[in-house]
Protein backbone atom coordinates (compact mmCIF):
# COMPACT_ATOMS: atom_id res chain seq x y z
CA UNK A 1 0.00 0.00 0.00
CA UNK A 2 2.78 2.39 0.91
CA UNK A 3 4.26 1.84 -2.55
CA UNK A 4 1.06 2.73 -4.36
CA UNK A 5 0.78 5.75 -2.12
CA UNK A 6 4.34 6.87 -2.96
CA UNK A 7 3.66 6.24 -6.62
CA UNK A 8 0.60 8.50 -6.61
CA UNK A 9 2.31 11.20 -4.54
CA UNK A 10 5.20 11.00 -6.99
CA UNK A 11 2.97 11.42 -10.03
CA UNK A 12 1.33 14.46 -8.44
CA UNK A 13 4.74 15.91 -7.52
CA UNK A 14 5.64 15.40 -11.17
CA UNK A 15 2.90 17.88 -12.00
CA UNK A 16 4.71 20.56 -10.00
CA UNK A 17 8.01 19.78 -11.74
CA UNK A 18 6.25 19.90 -15.10
CA UNK A 19 5.02 23.40 -14.19
CA UNK A 20 8.60 24.42 -13.34
CA UNK A 21 9.73 22.94 -16.63
CA UNK A 22 6.99 24.01 -19.06
CA UNK A 23 8.39 27.54 -19.42
CA UNK A 24 11.88 26.18 -20.00
CA UNK A 25 10.61 23.72 -22.56
CA UNK A 26 8.70 26.46 -24.43
CA UNK A 27 11.68 28.80 -24.52
CA UNK A 28 14.08 26.07 -25.56
CA UNK A 29 11.70 24.85 -28.25
CA UNK A 30 11.38 28.28 -29.84
CA UNK A 31 14.80 29.88 -29.45
CA UNK A 32 17.12 27.06 -28.31
CA UNK A 33 17.84 29.06 -25.16
CA UNK A 34 18.91 27.17 -22.05
CA UNK A 35 17.86 29.60 -19.36
CA UNK A 36 19.90 28.98 -16.21
CA UNK A 37 18.00 31.74 -14.40
CA UNK A 38 14.56 30.16 -14.85
CA UNK A 39 14.50 28.71 -11.32
CA UNK A 40 15.37 32.10 -9.84
CA UNK A 41 12.75 33.76 -12.02
CA UNK A 42 10.18 31.37 -10.52
CA UNK A 43 11.34 32.27 -7.02
CA UNK A 44 11.23 35.94 -8.01
CA UNK A 45 7.63 35.45 -9.20
CA UNK A 46 6.80 33.88 -5.84
CA UNK A 47 8.10 36.99 -4.07
CA UNK A 48 6.15 39.30 -6.40
CA UNK A 49 3.00 37.29 -5.67
CA UNK A 50 3.78 37.46 -1.96
CA UNK A 51 4.21 41.23 -2.24
CA UNK A 52 0.71 41.59 -3.69
CA UNK A 53 -0.64 39.32 -0.97
CA UNK A 54 0.86 41.38 1.81
CA UNK A 55 0.49 44.85 0.28
CA UNK A 56 -3.01 44.57 -1.15
CA UNK A 57 -4.31 41.83 1.12
CA UNK A 58 -5.20 39.67 -1.88
CA UNK A 59 -5.75 35.94 -1.84
CA UNK A 60 -2.66 34.26 -3.38
CA UNK A 61 -4.62 33.08 -6.42
CA UNK A 62 -5.81 36.62 -7.11
CA UNK A 63 -2.35 37.99 -6.40
CA UNK A 64 -0.97 35.61 -9.04
CA UNK A 65 -3.44 37.08 -11.52
CA UNK A 66 -2.01 40.51 -10.81
CA UNK A 67 1.57 39.24 -10.89
CA UNK A 68 1.16 37.39 -14.19
CA UNK A 69 0.91 40.42 -16.54
CA UNK A 70 3.71 42.09 -14.63
CA UNK A 71 5.99 39.07 -15.07
CA UNK A 72 4.97 38.90 -18.73
CA UNK A 73 6.31 42.46 -19.06
CA UNK A 74 9.50 41.63 -17.19
CA UNK A 75 10.08 38.55 -19.34
CA UNK A 76 9.40 40.54 -22.50
CA UNK A 77 11.86 43.27 -21.49
CA UNK A 78 14.48 40.77 -20.37
CA UNK A 79 14.35 39.09 -23.76
CA UNK A 80 14.24 42.35 -25.73
CA UNK A 81 16.99 44.16 -23.85
CA UNK A 82 19.33 41.37 -22.84
CA UNK A 83 18.79 37.87 -24.16
CA UNK A 84 18.09 38.72 -27.82
CA UNK A 85 21.54 40.30 -27.96
CA UNK A 86 23.31 37.08 -27.06
CA UNK A 87 21.29 34.49 -28.97
CA UNK A 88 23.19 33.00 -31.86
CA UNK A 89 25.10 29.97 -33.06
CA UNK A 90 27.51 30.24 -30.10
CA UNK A 91 25.95 28.61 -27.02
CA UNK A 92 28.39 30.25 -24.62
CA UNK A 93 27.03 33.84 -24.30
CA UNK A 94 23.39 32.97 -23.46
CA UNK A 95 24.52 30.36 -20.92
CA UNK A 96 26.87 32.77 -19.20
CA UNK A 97 24.41 35.68 -19.25
CA UNK A 98 21.59 33.61 -17.74
CA UNK A 99 24.05 32.19 -15.21
CA UNK A 100 25.00 35.75 -14.23
CA UNK A 101 21.33 36.69 -14.06
CA UNK A 102 20.72 33.78 -11.70
CA UNK A 103 23.37 35.07 -9.28
CA UNK A 104 22.06 38.65 -9.58
CA UNK A 105 18.45 37.62 -8.89
CA UNK A 106 19.36 35.44 -5.90
CA UNK A 107 21.31 38.22 -4.26
CA UNK A 108 18.81 40.95 -5.12
CA UNK A 109 16.09 38.84 -3.47
CA UNK A 110 18.36 38.20 -0.51
CA UNK A 111 18.95 41.94 -0.15
CA UNK A 112 15.25 42.89 -0.34
CA UNK A 113 13.58 39.97 1.43
CA UNK A 114 16.37 38.57 3.66
CA UNK A 115 17.14 34.86 3.90
CA UNK A 116 14.03 34.07 5.99
CA UNK A 117 11.80 31.48 4.41
CA UNK A 118 8.32 32.63 3.35
CA UNK A 119 5.11 31.01 2.32
CA UNK A 120 1.91 31.79 0.46
CA UNK A 121 -0.95 30.91 2.75
CA UNK A 122 -4.32 29.73 1.43
CA UNK A 123 -5.84 28.54 4.70
CA UNK A 124 -7.49 25.12 4.91
CA UNK A 125 -6.86 24.30 1.26
CA UNK A 126 -3.24 23.53 2.18
CA UNK A 127 -4.21 20.60 4.36
CA UNK A 128 -7.50 19.36 2.92
CA UNK A 129 -7.50 15.98 1.26
CA UNK A 130 -9.57 13.71 -0.92
CA UNK A 131 -9.95 10.01 -0.36
CA UNK A 132 -9.84 7.87 -3.45
CA UNK A 133 -10.72 4.45 -2.15
CA UNK A 134 -7.91 3.32 0.13
CA UNK A 135 -5.60 6.19 -0.90
CA UNK A 136 -5.78 9.71 0.44
CA UNK A 137 -4.39 12.54 -1.69
CA UNK A 138 -4.05 16.23 -0.91
CA UNK A 139 -6.35 18.60 -2.77
CA UNK A 140 -3.48 20.93 -3.50
CA UNK A 141 -1.22 18.37 -5.23
CA UNK A 142 -4.21 17.28 -7.34
CA UNK A 143 -4.89 20.91 -8.26
CA UNK A 144 -1.22 21.34 -9.15
CA UNK A 145 -1.31 18.32 -11.41
CA UNK A 146 -4.51 19.42 -13.14
CA UNK A 147 -3.07 22.91 -13.60
CA UNK A 148 0.04 21.41 -15.20
CA UNK A 149 -2.14 19.51 -17.67
CA UNK A 150 -4.20 22.65 -18.38
CA UNK A 151 -1.05 24.71 -18.96
CA UNK A 152 0.23 22.14 -21.43
CA UNK A 153 -3.12 21.91 -23.22
CA UNK A 154 -3.33 25.70 -23.50
CA UNK A 155 0.26 25.96 -24.72
CA UNK A 156 -0.36 23.29 -27.34
CA UNK A 157 -3.55 25.06 -28.41
CA UNK A 158 -1.64 28.32 -28.77
CA UNK A 159 1.09 26.55 -30.63
CA UNK A 160 -1.08 24.68 -33.13
CA UNK A 161 -4.27 26.76 -33.40
CA UNK A 162 -3.26 30.41 -33.36
CA UNK A 163 -1.32 32.81 -35.53
CA UNK A 164 1.11 33.42 -32.67
CA UNK A 165 1.68 29.68 -32.41
CA UNK A 166 2.36 29.43 -36.11
CA UNK A 167 4.91 32.20 -35.74
CA UNK A 168 6.45 30.32 -32.79
CA UNK A 169 6.81 27.13 -34.79
CA UNK A 170 8.03 28.89 -37.91
CA UNK A 171 10.71 30.77 -35.96
CA UNK A 172 11.69 27.58 -34.20
CA UNK A 173 12.11 25.71 -37.49
CA UNK A 174 13.93 28.41 -39.43
CA UNK A 175 14.25 31.99 -38.17
CA UNK A 176 15.63 33.32 -41.46
CA UNK A 177 12.77 32.02 -43.61
CA UNK A 178 10.27 33.10 -40.97
CA UNK A 179 11.73 36.59 -41.24
CA UNK A 180 11.22 36.54 -45.01
CA UNK A 181 7.54 35.81 -44.35
CA UNK A 182 7.22 38.96 -42.28
CA UNK A 183 7.77 37.51 -38.81
CA UNK A 184 10.10 39.40 -36.52
CA UNK A 185 12.00 36.74 -34.54
CA UNK A 186 13.09 39.23 -31.88
CA UNK A 187 9.54 40.13 -31.03
CA UNK A 188 8.41 36.49 -31.21
CA UNK A 189 11.19 35.55 -28.78
CA UNK A 190 10.13 38.34 -26.43
CA UNK A 191 6.50 37.16 -26.48
CA UNK A 192 7.62 33.58 -25.83
CA UNK A 193 9.71 34.67 -22.84
CA UNK A 194 6.76 36.71 -21.53
CA UNK A 195 4.57 33.63 -21.80
CA UNK A 196 7.20 31.52 -20.05
CA UNK A 197 7.14 34.04 -17.19
CA UNK A 198 3.36 33.77 -16.92
CA UNK A 199 3.85 30.01 -16.48
CA UNK A 200 6.57 30.81 -13.95
CA UNK A 201 4.00 32.75 -11.90
CA UNK A 202 1.67 29.73 -11.94
CA UNK A 203 4.56 27.48 -10.90
CA UNK A 204 5.54 29.99 -8.20
CA UNK A 205 2.01 30.04 -6.83
CA UNK A 206 1.94 26.29 -6.26
CA UNK A 207 5.55 26.25 -5.09
CA UNK A 208 4.81 28.95 -2.51
CA UNK A 209 1.64 27.29 -1.23
CA UNK A 210 3.16 23.83 -1.08
CA UNK A 211 6.33 24.66 0.82
CA UNK A 212 8.48 27.40 2.24
CA UNK A 213 10.71 29.27 -0.14
CA UNK A 214 13.73 31.51 0.28
CA UNK A 215 15.99 33.32 -2.21
CA UNK A 216 18.43 30.42 -2.55
CA UNK A 217 16.11 27.61 -3.67
CA UNK A 218 15.90 28.52 -7.37
CA UNK A 219 18.81 26.43 -8.67
CA UNK A 220 17.75 23.17 -6.99
CA UNK A 221 14.21 23.52 -8.39
CA UNK A 222 15.71 24.41 -11.75
CA UNK A 223 17.75 21.23 -11.88
CA UNK A 224 14.60 19.05 -11.53
CA UNK A 225 12.92 21.11 -14.23
CA UNK A 226 15.85 20.64 -16.60
CA UNK A 227 15.89 16.93 -15.90
CA UNK A 228 12.19 16.76 -16.75
CA UNK A 229 12.73 18.66 -20.00
CA UNK A 230 15.71 16.53 -21.05
CA UNK A 231 14.29 13.10 -20.30
CA UNK A 232 10.92 14.11 -21.72
CA UNK A 233 12.55 14.90 -25.04
CA UNK A 234 13.38 18.41 -26.18
CA UNK A 235 10.48 20.40 -27.60
CA UNK A 236 7.67 18.12 -26.43
CA UNK A 237 5.46 19.52 -23.64
CA UNK A 238 3.75 16.19 -22.94
CA UNK A 239 7.22 14.71 -22.79
CA UNK A 240 8.09 17.33 -20.19
CA UNK A 241 5.11 16.24 -18.09
CA UNK A 242 6.20 12.62 -18.41
CA UNK A 243 9.75 13.63 -17.43
CA UNK A 244 8.41 15.52 -14.41
CA UNK A 245 6.42 12.46 -13.36
CA UNK A 246 9.47 10.20 -13.66
CA UNK A 247 11.56 12.52 -11.50
CA UNK A 248 8.69 12.93 -9.02
CA UNK A 249 8.02 9.20 -8.71
CA UNK A 250 11.73 8.40 -8.37
CA UNK A 251 12.00 10.96 -5.58
CA UNK A 252 9.02 9.75 -3.57
CA UNK A 253 9.97 6.09 -3.99
CA UNK A 254 13.57 6.91 -3.02
CA UNK A 255 12.29 8.79 0.04
CA UNK A 256 10.13 5.83 1.04
CA UNK A 257 13.19 3.59 1.09
CA UNK A 258 15.39 6.09 2.91
CA UNK A 259 14.57 9.79 3.43
CA UNK A 260 18.17 10.74 2.65
CA UNK A 261 17.88 9.22 -0.83
CA UNK A 262 14.99 11.33 -2.07
CA UNK A 263 16.93 13.82 -4.19
CA UNK A 264 19.60 11.32 -5.18
CA UNK A 265 16.97 8.89 -6.50
CA UNK A 266 15.53 11.59 -8.78
CA UNK A 267 18.97 12.36 -10.24
CA UNK A 268 19.75 8.68 -10.73
CA UNK A 269 16.46 8.14 -12.59
CA UNK A 270 17.51 11.00 -14.87
CA UNK A 271 20.93 9.43 -15.52
CA UNK A 272 19.38 6.03 -16.22
CA UNK A 273 16.95 7.48 -18.75
CA UNK A 274 19.58 9.48 -20.63
CA UNK A 275 21.92 6.52 -20.78
CA UNK A 276 19.19 4.43 -22.41
CA UNK A 277 17.53 7.19 -24.46
CA UNK A 278 19.89 10.13 -24.89
CA UNK A 279 17.31 12.07 -26.93
CA UNK A 280 14.67 11.68 -24.26
CA UNK A 281 11.48 9.70 -24.28
CA UNK A 282 9.35 11.81 -26.64
CA UNK A 283 11.74 13.91 -28.75
CA UNK A 284 10.22 16.38 -31.17
CA UNK A 285 12.92 18.91 -31.99
CA UNK A 286 15.78 17.56 -34.07
CA UNK A 287 18.82 19.78 -34.30
Amino acid sequence: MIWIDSLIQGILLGGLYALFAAGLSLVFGIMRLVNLAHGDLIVFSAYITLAFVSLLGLHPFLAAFVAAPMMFGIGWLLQRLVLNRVLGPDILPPLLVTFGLSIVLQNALLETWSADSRRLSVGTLETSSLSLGPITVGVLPVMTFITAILVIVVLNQISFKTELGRAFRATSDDPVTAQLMGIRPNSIFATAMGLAMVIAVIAALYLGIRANFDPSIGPTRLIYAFEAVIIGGLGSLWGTLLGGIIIGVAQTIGATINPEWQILAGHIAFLVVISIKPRGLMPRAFD
Partner: protein
Amino acid sequence: MYHVETKTRASKIAFYGGIVALIIAVAVPFFAGRATLQDMFFILTMLVLAQWWNLLAGFGGLVSVGQQAFVGMGAYAMFGMVILLGWDPVPSILIAGLAALILSIPTAFFAFRLQGAYFAIGTWVIAEVTRLSVAQWKQLGGGTGTSLSRSATKNIWGVEWIKDLLDVKTSAARDILAYWLALILAVLTIGFIYWLLRSRRGLGLSALRDNFTAAKSLGVDAGAIKWFVFLISAFGTGLAGGLIYMQKARISPDAAFSVLDWTAYVIFIVVIGGIGTIEGPIIGVIVFFLLQNMLADYGSWYLLILGVIGIAIMLFAPKGLWGLFSQKTGIQIFPVQRRLVHKNQNSEDKNNG
Protein backbone atom coordinates in the same frame (compact mmCIF):
# COMPACT_ATOMS: atom_id res chain seq x y z
CA MET B 1 60.93 31.30 -47.49
CA TYR B 2 57.80 31.26 -45.35
CA HIS B 3 57.29 29.41 -42.16
CA VAL B 4 54.57 29.10 -39.52
CA GLU B 5 55.17 30.86 -36.25
CA THR B 6 53.19 31.53 -33.10
CA LYS B 7 55.75 33.62 -31.19
CA THR B 8 55.40 37.38 -31.22
CA ARG B 9 57.71 40.11 -30.02
CA ALA B 10 55.45 40.70 -27.01
CA SER B 11 55.52 37.03 -26.13
CA LYS B 12 59.32 36.94 -26.28
CA ILE B 13 59.61 39.96 -23.99
CA ALA B 14 56.91 38.55 -21.71
CA PHE B 15 58.80 35.25 -21.48
CA TYR B 16 61.75 36.95 -19.81
CA GLY B 17 59.42 39.15 -17.75
CA GLY B 18 57.63 36.00 -16.66
CA ILE B 19 60.88 34.39 -15.49
CA VAL B 20 61.68 37.46 -13.38
CA ALA B 21 58.13 37.47 -11.97
CA LEU B 22 58.43 33.78 -11.16
CA ILE B 23 61.70 34.28 -9.29
CA ILE B 24 60.07 37.07 -7.26
CA ALA B 25 57.00 34.88 -6.63
CA VAL B 26 59.18 32.03 -5.33
CA ALA B 27 60.90 34.47 -2.99
CA VAL B 28 57.70 36.03 -1.60
CA PRO B 29 57.72 33.96 1.64
CA PHE B 30 61.13 35.45 2.49
CA PHE B 31 59.70 38.95 2.85
CA ALA B 32 55.90 38.77 3.04
CA GLY B 33 53.63 38.04 5.99
CA ARG B 34 51.11 35.23 6.39
CA ALA B 35 48.11 37.32 5.32
CA THR B 36 49.79 38.14 2.00
CA LEU B 37 50.70 34.49 1.49
CA GLN B 38 47.14 33.39 2.14
CA ASP B 39 45.85 35.97 -0.35
CA MET B 40 48.39 34.81 -2.91
CA PHE B 41 47.39 31.19 -2.28
CA PHE B 42 43.76 32.11 -2.93
CA ILE B 43 44.67 33.98 -6.13
CA LEU B 44 46.86 31.15 -7.44
CA THR B 45 44.39 28.36 -6.75
CA MET B 46 41.49 30.32 -8.25
CA LEU B 47 43.74 31.01 -11.24
CA VAL B 48 44.33 27.29 -11.68
CA LEU B 49 40.59 26.55 -11.54
CA ALA B 50 39.92 29.41 -13.97
CA GLN B 51 42.55 28.21 -16.45
CA TRP B 52 41.04 24.73 -16.55
CA TRP B 53 37.50 26.00 -16.91
CA ASN B 54 38.68 28.36 -19.63
CA LEU B 55 40.31 25.48 -21.49
CA LEU B 56 36.99 23.65 -21.37
CA ALA B 57 34.61 26.49 -22.19
CA GLY B 58 36.75 29.05 -23.96
CA PHE B 59 38.78 26.70 -26.15
CA GLY B 60 36.74 23.50 -26.12
CA GLY B 61 33.23 25.03 -26.17
CA LEU B 62 32.31 22.75 -23.24
CA VAL B 63 30.47 24.97 -20.76
CA SER B 64 30.55 23.02 -17.53
CA VAL B 65 28.72 24.29 -14.46
CA GLY B 66 29.77 21.19 -12.55
CA GLN B 67 33.47 21.79 -11.92
CA GLN B 68 32.72 21.74 -8.18
CA ALA B 69 32.35 17.97 -8.61
CA PHE B 70 36.08 17.70 -9.30
CA VAL B 71 37.15 20.16 -6.60
CA GLY B 72 35.02 18.30 -4.06
CA MET B 73 36.03 14.85 -5.27
CA GLY B 74 39.70 15.81 -5.16
CA ALA B 75 39.35 17.31 -1.71
CA TYR B 76 37.54 14.27 -0.33
CA ALA B 77 40.00 11.86 -1.93
CA MET B 78 42.86 13.77 -0.28
CA PHE B 79 41.06 13.67 3.09
CA GLY B 80 40.35 9.97 2.59
CA MET B 81 44.01 9.15 1.92
CA VAL B 82 45.13 11.11 4.99
CA ILE B 83 42.43 10.05 7.45
CA LEU B 84 41.68 6.48 6.36
CA LEU B 85 45.06 5.35 5.02
CA GLY B 86 47.39 7.61 6.98
CA TRP B 87 49.11 9.09 3.94
CA ASP B 88 50.92 12.40 4.01
CA PRO B 89 48.74 15.23 2.59
CA VAL B 90 51.27 16.24 -0.11
CA PRO B 91 51.34 12.96 -2.08
CA SER B 92 47.60 12.66 -1.37
CA ILE B 93 47.09 15.70 -3.60
CA LEU B 94 48.14 13.55 -6.55
CA ILE B 95 45.49 11.02 -5.58
CA ALA B 96 43.04 13.95 -5.48
CA GLY B 97 43.79 14.61 -9.14
CA LEU B 98 43.43 10.93 -10.01
CA ALA B 99 40.11 10.64 -8.16
CA ALA B 100 38.74 13.62 -10.07
CA LEU B 101 40.03 12.09 -13.30
CA ILE B 102 38.22 8.84 -12.54
CA LEU B 103 35.01 10.72 -11.72
CA SER B 104 35.28 12.64 -14.97
CA ILE B 105 34.94 9.44 -17.03
CA PRO B 106 31.31 8.68 -16.08
CA THR B 107 30.61 12.44 -16.04
CA ALA B 108 31.80 12.75 -19.64
CA PHE B 109 29.87 9.63 -20.58
CA PHE B 110 26.60 11.18 -19.39
CA ALA B 111 27.20 14.83 -20.20
CA PHE B 112 28.43 14.20 -23.76
CA ARG B 113 25.16 12.45 -24.50
CA LEU B 114 23.32 15.74 -24.04
CA GLN B 115 23.16 18.16 -26.92
CA GLY B 116 24.69 21.61 -26.96
CA ALA B 117 23.94 23.74 -23.96
CA TYR B 118 22.36 20.82 -22.09
CA PHE B 119 25.90 19.58 -21.55
CA ALA B 120 26.03 22.19 -18.77
CA ILE B 121 23.03 20.62 -17.05
CA GLY B 122 24.58 17.14 -17.30
CA THR B 123 27.73 18.25 -15.51
CA TRP B 124 25.65 19.98 -12.86
CA VAL B 125 23.55 16.87 -12.18
CA ILE B 126 26.69 14.75 -11.77
CA ALA B 127 28.12 17.30 -9.33
CA GLU B 128 24.92 17.09 -7.27
CA VAL B 129 24.95 13.29 -7.36
CA THR B 130 28.57 13.28 -6.20
CA ARG B 131 27.85 15.76 -3.40
CA LEU B 132 24.85 13.77 -2.17
CA SER B 133 26.78 10.49 -2.35
CA VAL B 134 29.81 11.86 -0.53
CA ALA B 135 27.48 13.18 2.19
CA GLN B 136 26.62 9.52 2.85
CA TRP B 137 30.30 8.67 3.49
CA LYS B 138 30.15 8.35 7.27
CA GLN B 139 33.89 7.75 7.87
CA LEU B 140 34.53 11.23 6.48
CA GLY B 141 31.89 12.92 8.58
CA GLY B 142 28.84 12.46 6.34
CA GLY B 143 26.85 15.61 5.77
CA THR B 144 28.60 17.63 8.47
CA GLY B 145 32.16 17.00 7.31
CA THR B 146 35.40 16.52 9.20
CA SER B 147 38.83 18.02 9.89
CA LEU B 148 42.39 16.85 9.37
CA SER B 149 43.76 15.91 12.77
CA ARG B 150 46.58 17.89 14.34
CA SER B 151 48.97 14.99 13.99
CA ALA B 152 48.21 14.70 10.27
CA THR B 153 48.88 18.36 9.56
CA LYS B 154 51.90 18.69 11.85
CA ASN B 155 54.46 16.67 9.96
CA ILE B 156 53.55 17.37 6.37
CA TRP B 157 56.43 16.71 3.97
CA GLY B 158 58.64 19.76 3.68
CA VAL B 159 57.29 21.65 6.67
CA GLU B 160 60.34 20.86 8.86
CA TRP B 161 62.63 21.93 6.06
CA ILE B 162 60.74 25.23 5.59
CA LYS B 163 60.81 25.83 9.35
CA ASP B 164 64.59 25.51 9.39
CA LEU B 165 65.07 27.46 6.18
CA LEU B 166 62.95 30.47 7.11
CA ASP B 167 62.94 30.16 10.89
CA VAL B 168 59.14 30.23 11.24
CA LYS B 169 56.46 28.41 13.29
CA THR B 170 54.76 25.25 12.03
CA SER B 171 51.52 26.99 11.06
CA ALA B 172 53.39 29.63 9.05
CA ALA B 173 55.54 26.93 7.43
CA ARG B 174 52.37 25.13 6.37
CA ASP B 175 51.08 28.28 4.66
CA ILE B 176 54.42 28.69 2.88
CA LEU B 177 54.34 25.08 1.72
CA ALA B 178 50.78 25.50 0.44
CA TYR B 179 51.78 28.70 -1.32
CA TRP B 180 54.77 27.10 -3.06
CA LEU B 181 52.68 24.12 -4.10
CA ALA B 182 50.01 26.48 -5.48
CA LEU B 183 52.70 28.38 -7.37
CA ILE B 184 54.06 25.16 -8.87
CA LEU B 185 50.55 24.05 -9.80
CA ALA B 186 49.73 27.40 -11.41
CA VAL B 187 52.95 27.47 -13.44
CA LEU B 188 52.52 23.86 -14.56
CA THR B 189 48.87 24.49 -15.45
CA ILE B 190 49.57 27.55 -17.55
CA GLY B 191 52.63 25.91 -19.10
CA PHE B 192 50.71 22.76 -19.96
CA ILE B 193 47.71 24.58 -21.43
CA TYR B 194 49.99 26.85 -23.48
CA TRP B 195 51.90 23.83 -24.76
CA LEU B 196 48.66 21.97 -25.49
CA LEU B 197 47.16 24.84 -27.47
CA ARG B 198 50.29 25.16 -29.57
CA SER B 199 50.41 21.43 -30.22
CA ARG B 200 48.61 19.48 -32.93
CA ARG B 201 45.79 18.65 -30.54
CA GLY B 202 45.34 22.28 -29.60
CA LEU B 203 45.15 23.25 -33.24
CA GLY B 204 42.40 20.65 -33.67
CA LEU B 205 40.61 22.04 -30.63
CA SER B 206 40.62 25.62 -31.94
CA ALA B 207 39.60 24.39 -35.38
CA LEU B 208 36.59 22.59 -33.91
CA ARG B 209 35.59 25.72 -32.00
CA ASP B 210 35.91 27.96 -35.04
CA ASN B 211 34.22 25.72 -37.57
CA PHE B 212 33.06 22.35 -36.37
CA THR B 213 32.06 20.87 -39.72
CA ALA B 214 35.13 22.06 -41.59
CA ALA B 215 37.43 20.76 -38.87
CA LYS B 216 35.76 17.36 -38.83
CA SER B 217 35.90 17.08 -42.60
CA LEU B 218 39.66 17.67 -42.42
CA GLY B 219 39.98 14.70 -40.11
CA VAL B 220 39.96 16.27 -36.64
CA ASP B 221 38.64 13.65 -34.24
CA ALA B 222 36.12 15.78 -32.34
CA GLY B 223 35.10 13.07 -29.89
CA ALA B 224 38.64 12.18 -28.84
CA ILE B 225 39.66 15.81 -28.35
CA LYS B 226 36.57 16.61 -26.29
CA TRP B 227 37.22 13.61 -24.04
CA PHE B 228 40.88 14.50 -23.67
CA VAL B 229 40.17 18.12 -22.73
CA PHE B 230 37.42 17.20 -20.29
CA LEU B 231 39.50 14.53 -18.53
CA ILE B 232 42.66 16.58 -18.26
CA SER B 233 40.68 19.57 -16.92
CA ALA B 234 39.11 17.36 -14.30
CA PHE B 235 42.56 16.12 -13.27
CA GLY B 236 43.89 19.67 -12.90
CA THR B 237 40.76 20.82 -11.08
CA GLY B 238 41.03 17.83 -8.72
CA LEU B 239 44.66 18.67 -7.91
CA ALA B 240 43.60 22.23 -7.06
CA GLY B 241 40.76 20.85 -4.92
CA GLY B 242 43.15 18.64 -2.96
CA LEU B 243 45.59 21.50 -2.44
CA ILE B 244 42.89 24.01 -1.40
CA TYR B 245 41.56 21.59 1.22
CA MET B 246 45.03 20.66 2.46
CA GLN B 247 45.35 24.33 3.37
CA LYS B 248 41.81 24.61 4.79
CA ALA B 249 42.24 21.32 6.75
CA ARG B 250 38.45 21.25 7.27
CA ILE B 251 35.92 19.86 4.84
CA SER B 252 32.17 19.47 4.42
CA PRO B 253 30.17 18.37 1.36
CA ASP B 254 28.38 21.72 1.02
CA ALA B 255 31.64 23.67 1.04
CA ALA B 256 33.70 21.29 -1.08
CA PHE B 257 30.95 20.95 -3.71
CA SER B 258 29.89 24.60 -3.61
CA VAL B 259 28.72 25.72 -7.04
CA LEU B 260 29.25 29.34 -6.01
CA ASP B 261 32.85 29.03 -4.81
CA TRP B 262 34.22 26.63 -7.39
CA THR B 263 32.18 27.33 -10.49
CA ALA B 264 30.36 30.69 -10.31
CA TYR B 265 33.42 32.64 -9.16
CA VAL B 266 35.56 30.83 -11.68
CA ILE B 267 33.16 31.67 -14.50
CA PHE B 268 33.14 35.35 -13.49
CA ILE B 269 36.94 35.40 -13.34
CA VAL B 270 37.22 34.01 -16.85
CA VAL B 271 34.42 36.13 -18.32
CA ILE B 272 35.68 39.38 -16.80
CA GLY B 273 39.29 38.71 -17.76
CA GLY B 274 38.57 37.40 -21.23
CA ILE B 275 37.31 33.97 -22.24
CA GLY B 276 39.31 31.98 -24.76
CA THR B 277 42.71 33.44 -23.93
CA ILE B 278 45.35 32.33 -21.43
CA GLU B 279 45.91 35.93 -20.35
CA GLY B 280 42.19 36.44 -19.57
CA PRO B 281 41.97 34.37 -16.38
CA ILE B 282 45.18 35.99 -15.08
CA ILE B 283 43.69 39.47 -15.45
CA GLY B 284 40.31 38.19 -14.26
CA VAL B 285 41.61 36.69 -11.02
CA ILE B 286 43.37 39.95 -10.11
CA VAL B 287 40.23 42.02 -10.81
CA PHE B 288 38.16 39.46 -8.89
CA PHE B 289 40.49 39.64 -5.89
CA LEU B 290 40.44 43.45 -5.86
CA LEU B 291 36.64 43.55 -6.16
CA GLN B 292 36.30 41.04 -3.37
CA ASN B 293 38.51 43.10 -1.08
CA MET B 294 36.73 46.35 -1.96
CA LEU B 295 33.23 44.97 -1.55
CA ALA B 296 33.90 42.48 1.25
CA ASP B 297 31.69 44.40 3.70
CA TYR B 298 28.65 44.56 1.46
CA GLY B 299 27.65 40.89 1.62
CA SER B 300 25.18 40.00 -1.10
CA TRP B 301 25.73 43.31 -2.90
CA TYR B 302 29.16 41.99 -3.80
CA LEU B 303 27.75 39.01 -5.68
CA LEU B 304 25.06 41.16 -7.23
CA ILE B 305 27.66 43.57 -8.59
CA LEU B 306 29.84 40.68 -9.77
CA GLY B 307 26.86 39.22 -11.65
CA VAL B 308 26.00 42.56 -13.25
CA ILE B 309 29.62 43.06 -14.35
CA GLY B 310 29.65 39.55 -15.81
CA ILE B 311 26.45 40.17 -17.78
CA ALA B 312 27.64 43.61 -18.96
CA ILE B 313 30.91 42.11 -20.19
CA MET B 314 29.14 39.35 -22.10
CA LEU B 315 26.86 41.95 -23.71
CA PHE B 316 29.29 44.72 -24.54
CA ALA B 317 32.79 43.21 -24.50
CA PRO B 318 32.45 39.45 -24.91
CA LYS B 319 36.22 39.07 -25.14
CA GLY B 320 36.64 40.52 -21.64
CA LEU B 321 39.16 43.02 -20.35
CA TRP B 322 42.13 41.29 -21.94
CA GLY B 323 40.26 41.11 -25.24
CA LEU B 324 39.69 44.87 -25.19
CA PHE B 325 43.34 45.51 -24.42
CA SER B 326 44.57 43.02 -26.96
CA GLN B 327 42.35 44.45 -29.69
CA LYS B 328 43.57 47.98 -29.05
CA THR B 329 47.26 47.20 -28.77
CA GLY B 330 47.63 43.96 -30.69
CA ILE B 331 49.66 42.52 -27.81
CA GLN B 332 49.45 38.80 -27.00
CA ILE B 333 51.55 37.32 -24.25
CA PHE B 334 50.53 33.73 -24.90
CA PRO B 335 49.91 33.71 -28.64
CA VAL B 336 48.36 30.49 -29.90
CA GLN B 337 47.46 31.82 -33.30
CA ARG B 338 49.57 30.42 -36.14
CA ARG B 339 50.83 32.98 -38.59
CA LEU B 340 52.70 32.64 -41.84
CA VAL B 341 55.90 34.62 -41.48
CA HIS B 342 58.45 35.48 -44.13
CA LYS B 343 61.92 34.50 -43.03
CA ASN B 344 63.37 38.00 -43.15
CA GLN B 345 60.51 39.84 -41.54
CA ASN B 346 60.11 38.05 -38.26
CA SER B 347 60.00 41.29 -36.31
CA GLU B 348 57.31 42.95 -38.42
CA ASP B 349 54.39 41.41 -36.66
CA LYS B 350 52.73 44.50 -35.28
CA ASN B 351 49.39 43.78 -36.85
CA ASN B 352 49.15 40.17 -35.88
CA GLY B 353 51.28 40.15 -32.80
